[in-house]
C-alpha cells in the first residue's frame, strides 16, 4: 500500500530554520533578500513597455523604469519566482500533493472562494506596491536586517488581518 | 519531542546572549567621510622628514618601504635605495595592492616635490589603507638637506651641528666613500673671555 504522505508537513520550526538559511544565503551571495511581488511588477512593466511603448513613456510610473536597461534587481526576482514555482512543484511531487483543487471552507461555495481569491490578490498587488514589498520581500527580509520598514510592514499586515478576520470568518471556519 | 525543543530553544537563547556581548563591527571598506580625511590630512604624524628617512635607511630598518610615485623614466634616472616604483597613475592597480594596503611596513611615498606623494597618500587613505607616510619636500628637499646640507653658522646651536654631521655622514653613505668630505671642525664655543685688564692703577 502506497504511503499517503500528502498530509505530512515538515516541522514548522525546522522549516523556518531552513527558510532562514535560504534567506541568509540570498543575503550572503547577492546582498538582497527574497521577494515575490517585485517579480510581478517586473513582468508588468516589461509587458507594457513592449506592447504600448508610448503609453509607457508618458506615464509617471513606467517611465521610471525604461531606458535604464531593465535594472538587474528586477530580473533577479523574476528568476527567483520561477524558482519558487519549480521548488514548490518539486516538493509537491515528492510528497504526493499534486492535485487540482479549489480549497475552501465548507460554509461557502467554490465560486465564492475564487472571487475572494481574486479580490484578495488585487488588494495584495496594490498593497505590495505601497508597502514596497510583500510578506517575503518587505516583512521577512526586512526583519532579518532589522529595518524599521520591515517591522512596520509585518505589524500592519498581520495586525489588519487580525482586525478583519472576524468579518470574513465564514471563508475559513 | 519536548527534549528537542528545549535543546533548540536553549541554543537560541545562548546565541542571543552571545550576541548581547558582541562588539560593533563595521566591515565596509571605504568609510572615510570628508571630515575624517581632513583630520588625517593635518596630522603631522603622516609626514617624515629627510633626516628620519635617512636614518631608517642607514640603520637598515626593515619596516621601511620607500615608494617612488614618479614616472618610470624618472625612477630609472635616480631613485632612493630600496625604493620601488609605483607611478601615481597606477597606485590603485591590483598589482600594487599588497604594497599599499598592508599593516606591517611603513610605506613612505616620495616624489620630486611633495605634490604627487601627497596625492598618493590621500588616495590610499581614502581607501582606508594605513601605515602610509610621505617624505616632506620630496627629493628636492632630500638633496638640499642630506646630500648638500647647509653648513651651520658659527652661532647655531649644538643641535644644528649634530644634524649637519649626521647629514654629511649620510651623504657619504649614499654617494659612496669616494667623495672627499670636508668636515669642518666645529669651532669651539666662543666663550667670552674676560680680558684681564691690566689694572690700571695709578692715581
Amino acid at each position: 500500500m502506497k504511503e499517503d504522505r500528502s498530509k505530512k508537513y515538515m516541522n514548522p520550526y525546522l522549516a523556518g530554520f531552513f527558510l532562514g538559511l535560504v534567506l541568509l544565503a540570498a543575503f550572503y551571495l547577492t546582498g538582497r533578500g527574497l521577494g515575490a511581488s517585485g517579480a510581478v511588477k517586473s513582468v508588468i512593466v516589461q509587458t507594457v513597455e513592449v506592447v504600448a511603448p508610448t503609453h509607457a513613456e508618458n506615464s509617471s510610473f513606467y517611465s521610471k523604469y525604461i531606458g535604464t536597461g531593465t535594472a538587474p534587481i528586477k530580473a533577479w526576482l523574476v528568476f527567483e519566482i520561477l524558482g519558487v514555482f519549480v521548488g514548490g512543484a518539486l516538493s509537491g511531487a515528492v510528497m504526493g500533493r499534486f492535485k487540482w483543487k479549489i480549497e475552501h471552507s465548507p460554509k461557502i461555495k467554490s465560486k465564492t472562494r475564487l472571487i475572494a481569491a481574486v479580490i484578495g490578490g488585487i488588494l495584495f498587488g496594490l498593497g505590495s506596491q505601497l508597502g514596497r514589498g510583500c510578506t517575503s520581500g518587505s516583512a521577512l527580509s526586512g526583519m532579518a536586517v532589522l529595518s524599521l520598514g520591515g517591522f512596520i510592514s509585518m505589524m500592519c499586515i498581520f495586525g489588519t488581518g487580525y482586525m478583519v478576520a472576524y468579518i470574513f470568518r465564514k471563508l475559513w471556519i | 519531542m519536548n527534549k528537542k525543543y528545549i535543546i533548540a530553544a536553549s541554543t537560541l537563547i545562548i546565541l542571543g546572549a552571545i550576541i548581547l556581548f558582541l562588539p560593533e563591527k563595521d566591515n565596509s571598506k571605504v568609510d572615510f567621510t570628508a571630515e575624517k580625511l581632513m583630520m588625517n590630512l593635518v596630522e603631522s604624524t603622516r609626514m617624515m622628514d629627510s633626516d628620519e628617512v635617512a636614518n631608517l635607511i642607514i640603520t637598515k630598518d626593515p619596516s621601511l618601504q620607500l615608494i617612488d610615485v614618479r614616472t618610470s623614466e624618472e625612477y630609472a634616472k635616480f631613485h632612493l635605495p630600496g625604493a620601488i616604483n609605483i607611478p601615481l597613475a597606477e597606485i590603485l592597480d591590483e598589482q600594487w595592492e599588497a604594497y599599499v594596503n598592508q599593516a606591517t611596513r611603513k610605506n613612505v611615498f616620495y616624489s620630486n616635490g611633495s605634490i604627487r606623494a601627497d596625492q598618493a597618500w590621500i588616495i590610499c587613505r581614502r581607501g582606508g589603507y594605513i601605515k602610509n607616510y610621505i617624505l616632506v619636500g620630496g627629493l628636492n628637499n632630500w638633496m638640499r638637506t642630506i646630500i648638500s646640507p647647509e653648513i651651520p653658522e658659527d652661532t647655531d646651536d649644538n643641535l644644528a651641528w649634530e644634524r649637519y654631521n649626521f647629514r654629511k655622514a649620510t651623504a657619504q653613505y649614499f654617494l659612496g666613500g669616494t667623495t672627499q668630505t670636508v668636515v669642518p671642525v666645529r669651532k669651539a664655543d666662543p666663550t667670552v673671555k674676560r680680558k684681564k685688564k691690566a689694572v690700571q692703577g695709578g692715581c
Partner: protein
Amino acid sequence: MGPLVAQDIISSEWNFVIALLIGIGFGFVLEQAGFSSSKKLAGVFYGYDFVVLRVFFTAAITAMVGLIFLNYLGLIDMSLVYINPTYLYSTIVGGAIMGVGFILGGFCPGTGVCAAAIGKIDAWFFLLGIFIGIFFFAEAYDLFHDLYLGLSDPASFQEGTRNIKVYDQIGISGNLFAFGMIIMALVAFVVTAQIEKKVKKPNY
C-alpha cells in the same frame, strides 16, 4: 567577504542562476511547511494553526542571527546589503491593504506561487488578482504618488536615505534588540502552542 556577487567574488553572470536556485529552495521549503494550503495559512488569524507565525519568526531570527555572526566574523559587508527603506505612511497603508488581501485571498504572493505550483486553482486566481492589482497601481499611479513617495511623512523620516533601523528608532542597541526578539519569539511560540490546543480545528 560577502555579499559575494557585489564584491565580484562571484561574477554577476551567475546572479540569475543563484536567483533560480534560491527560489527553488524557497519554494521547496514553503511547500514542505504546508504553505501551499490557504486553509493552513489562514489558521494564524483564527487560532487553529499557527504555522505561519512559527515559520516566519524562526526564519527571520535564523537569518538575523546568521547575519550578526557573519558580520562579527568579518565575512560580510553589511553596507552592501540591501536594507529596505522606510516610507512610513505608505508602508502602513500598504500593509493594511495587504492584511485584508491576506484574509480574503488566503495567500501572499510567495505562497500563492507555491500553491499554484501544486495545482491549487484558488492560488491561480489569487495570482491573477496580483497582476490586476499591480497594473491598477501603475495606471493610477498619480493618485498614489504623494503617499508612495512619503511626502507627508514626519520630518525625521524625510531627511537622509530613509535607511532606518528598527532599534535606532526605539533607541536601543542592535544586539540588545536581537536578543529581545529571540526571547519574544520563544514566548510567542509557547503561548500560541497553548492557544492552538484549545481552538477547534476545521477540516483541512
